[in-house]
Structures are given as structure tokens and as C-alpha cells.
């Protein structure tokens, strides 16, 4: 059981990268962390890392695109803990292609996972947050909500939709004391940055980032986790509807 004053926090896409680093950080600060992912192996590793430090964690293999699955898992969390205080909606995938060659499946995978997945989770947790008249949500958008890049129209469209969703939710739920913010990470050294790239392509991409970024290095997942922690908590109690960008100066907006 968790202490009555602990927050109950849901993290999607917590099996690797930014989601994992955030789950670990929030568990360290005393949250009961409910982590989902599609990767059972990734989830187990995240859970083991949290438990090895004595943290409280509940895991679920959830396809965020599946409305019923999401509802069922949120119901399980509510049955177990009785409340949800925070949501970090972060699950994401990538499937690069130029638009001319993009299969509908590549388009739909990104829109369904990022946008519909986030809608599913937000709707499921907001009902309880409205009753509590408190809650905080952070959504992983991207610098690409502000600028476009080639070979990633599906990713850019999905991340821009998430930023729009963030702003609408912020306005819709502000009067209930619920805050909704987005993060716009720059290039972070995660499995997603490697996905769809050969080792050589990854190494070239990394070198290009390091040259181009003002800060001259990739970000670490822990650096994004610190920003999520800030936005979810009381330190940011007057911040809502914003996009906070841990991006090494990639896009200043």
C-alpha cells in the first residue's frame, strides 16, 4: 500500500527512455508509479529498477491505442490506489518515410499511438481528477510541434496535435484546478532516437546533432525527467497550457 499523502502517478511508455527515467525519478520522490508499455521486457526492467530502490510500482502491458484496454487498466489502478494524481502521457513510436512513399499504416500508427493514445489516457484519468478538483498532466510533444522536419510528417503532425490537445485540455480543466502542460524534448539519447536507423545512420545523426545544437550534445532521459517532475508538481502550480522544451537550444520559441 502507499502512504495516503503519496501521489499516484501514471506513466505511459515507461519501458524505456524518457518514460523510464521519469518513472524512476517520480518513484524516488515517493510517488506510487503505475507504468505501462507494450514491451514486457522493458516494463520488467523499469519495475526492477524502481523496486531495487524500494519504490512502489505497478505495471501494465497496455496498447494505448485501445480505448477499452486503457479504461480497464485505469480502473485497475483506481481500484488499487483509489485515486490518480498525475499522468505523464509519453508513449510514442516513430516510422520514418517521405510522404510520397508513406504507407497509410505508417501514418495511422503514429497518429493512433501519440494522439488517440493520449486522448484515451487523458479522458480516463480526468474524470477522477475533476471529482478531486486537482490533478496534473504532462504530455510528451516535441520541438517538431513548432518546426517541421523532412521524412517525419507523421511524427510532426502527431506531435503538433498533442500540443494543440494540451492547450485545449488546459483551458477546459483549469477551473477544476487541473493543469495540463506539454514537453518538447530535443534530441534525447533514447532507443527511439536509434529506431529505424542503422548504427552508421545513428552515428551520423548524432554527430550532426552535436554540431548543430547550441549545447553541443544530446540530452539524457534524466534531464527530461527533471522537467516533467517540475511541471507535474507544486513548483509549477501557476503554469498550464505551456510547452516546456528541454532541447539543448534546438528550437527557441
Amino acid at each position, binding site marked *: 500500500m502507499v502512504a495516503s499523502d503519496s501521489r499516484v502517478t501514471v506513466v505511459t511508455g515507461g519501458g524505456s527512455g524518457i518514460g523510464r527515467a521519469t518513472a524512476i525519478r517520480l518513484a524516488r520522490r515517493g510517488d506510487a508509479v503505475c507504468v505501462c508499455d507494450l514491451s514486457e521486457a522493458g516494463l520488467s526492467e523499469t519495475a526492477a529498477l524502481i523496486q531495487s530502490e524500494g519504490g512502489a510500482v505497478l505495471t501494465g502491458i497496455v496498447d494505448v491505442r485501445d480505448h477499452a484496454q486503457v479504461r480497464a487498466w485505469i480502473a485497475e489502478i483506481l481500484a488499487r490506489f483509489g485515486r490518480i494524481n498525475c499522468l505523464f502521457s509519453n508513449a510514442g513510436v516513430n516510422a520514418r518515410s517521405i510522404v510520397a512513399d508513406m504507407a497509410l499504416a505508417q501514418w495511422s500508427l503514429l497518429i493512433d499511438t501519440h494522439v488517440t493514445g493520449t486522448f484515451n489516457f487523458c479522458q480516463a484519468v480526468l474524470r477522477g481528477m475533476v471529482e478531486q478538483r486537482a490533478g496534473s498532466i504532462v504530455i510528451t510533444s516535441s520541438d517538431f510541434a513548432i518546426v517541421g522536419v523532412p521524412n517525419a510528417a507523421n511524427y510532426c503532425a502527431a506531435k503538433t496535435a498533442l500540443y494543440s490537445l494540451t492547450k485545449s485540455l488546459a483551458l477546459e480543466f*483549469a477551473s477544476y*484546478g487541473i493543469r495540463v502542460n506539454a514537453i518538447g524534448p530535443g534530441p534525447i539519447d533514447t532507443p527511439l532516437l536509434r529506431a529505424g536507423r542503422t548504427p552508421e545512420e545513428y552515428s551520423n545523426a548524432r554527430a550532426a546533432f552535436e554540431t548543430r545544437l547550441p549545447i553541443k550534445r544530446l540530452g539524457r532521459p534524466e*534531464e527530461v525527467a527533471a*522537467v516533467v517532475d517540475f511541471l507535474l508538481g507544486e513548483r509549477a502550480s501557476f503554469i498550464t497550457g505551456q510547452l516546456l522544451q528541454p532541447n539543448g537550444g534546438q528550437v527557441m520559441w
Partner: protein
Amino acid sequence: MGVAESNEHHGRVAVITGGSGAIGTATIERLRNTGVVVHVLDIQPSKVPGVYFHRVDVRSEPEVDAAFDAIGKSAGRIDYLVCCAGIYRPVPFLDLLLEQWQETLQVNLTGYFLCCRAALRFMRPQKFGRIVLFSSMVARTGGAHVAHYAASKGGILGLARSLAVESAAENIRVNTVSPVITDTPMPRAVLSDEEMESRKARIPLGRIGTVDDMAEACMFLLSDDSSYVLGHDLRVNGGSTLW
């Protein structure tokens, strides 16, 4: 208090301009409570005990340079710079005198330039620095009777981003905080209680900003929690401007 805020700040040296104002005072208290050695530059003495006060008009190049030289030499380093020295004197545009325009630009923008330049002379060689510049939501939205103020605050965003790009590789991070109307004597000097209430009604989170909201944002940007955040404008506005 944040996990990572535990005591990374202890023993660091901070210079804060406009430190005697309301937001400045709240920020100084936070800094001092985390063990930072605080130097205040202002024309009014600080009411916070345990900080060093330097009477400086931030428009004056010799005064700013002399104060930073004295601080840098005695403390051996300057780690943080927080700029919040500013004036807010609404005037309808056609009544705005060139002298009023210049005074606002000089205090709010040129003052920031002079202090950033003076601080960077110490931060560059030590390969460490954190700079937080207070801008305003008005930099984006503009507003009636505040053309001069909005221009000065918009200029701060450009200054901060340029400095951020120029300094990032030397482990110096520069960011801005843009507050919405905050409950301090500055807006209260020109707005009636009814006007303050009507401003509040336009803020989705249903309240006016507090000096603590702004101090928290500033502390976040000074801390390692924001180690990958630079050139960012952190908008602390209760949801009133979402861009």
C-alpha cells in the same frame, strides 16, 4: 522542494538586479535559504537580511561594471545572474514622450545587456553560469498604453536567445521567465482593485500570479533540473497566454 534542488546551490554566488522589488525579494529569499551568497543591485536597499547590497543604476555602464568587478573579485566567481530590474509606467501611445520611451528601454533592456555582459566576463572563464532574465507576457501579447514596456520586454527575449546560443557551449545557460500580472506593488500602483479583479477573471487558473510562483520558476531555471533547457521562455501565467 525539488529532489535535485537539495543543495546544489550551496555556496554559489548570485547577482540579482532589481532585487529590492517584490519578485526580486521572493527570489532572494529562496536563494539565501539554499545557501547562496546573494548580491543585490538596485537603487532601493533590499529588506532581506544577510545579503550584500550595491546601489547601482543599471542604466549606467560604469556603475554596473564597477559593481560586478567588485563582486567578482571579492567572491572569486559569479555563478548566477537574475535580472528583474524594471519599470512599468503605462502611457497612451500618442502621449508617449521620447524621454519616457528611452527611460523604459534603458532600464528594462539596456540594463539587462550591461549586467549580462558584466556577468559573462566572469562566467566565461569559469565555464559555468546560469542566467535568468525576467521578461513579461506582454512581450508576446502587447497591450494598450504599454508599447514602450512591451518593446523592452520583447527585446529581452531576443537578447536571451542570442546569449543562449552564444554561451551554451561554455556551460552557461540563459533563459527567461515571462510572468502574467503578479500581485506586487508595481501593477497595484497603476491599477485599481477592480482592474486587478478583472485581470484575474481572464486567467484560466482563476488567480493572479504570486511572487512565489515566479521565484519557483526562476529557481527551476537556475537549477540542474533544467540542465537541457536553454533559450527558453518559461511562461508563468495561469494559462492566460498559450503561445
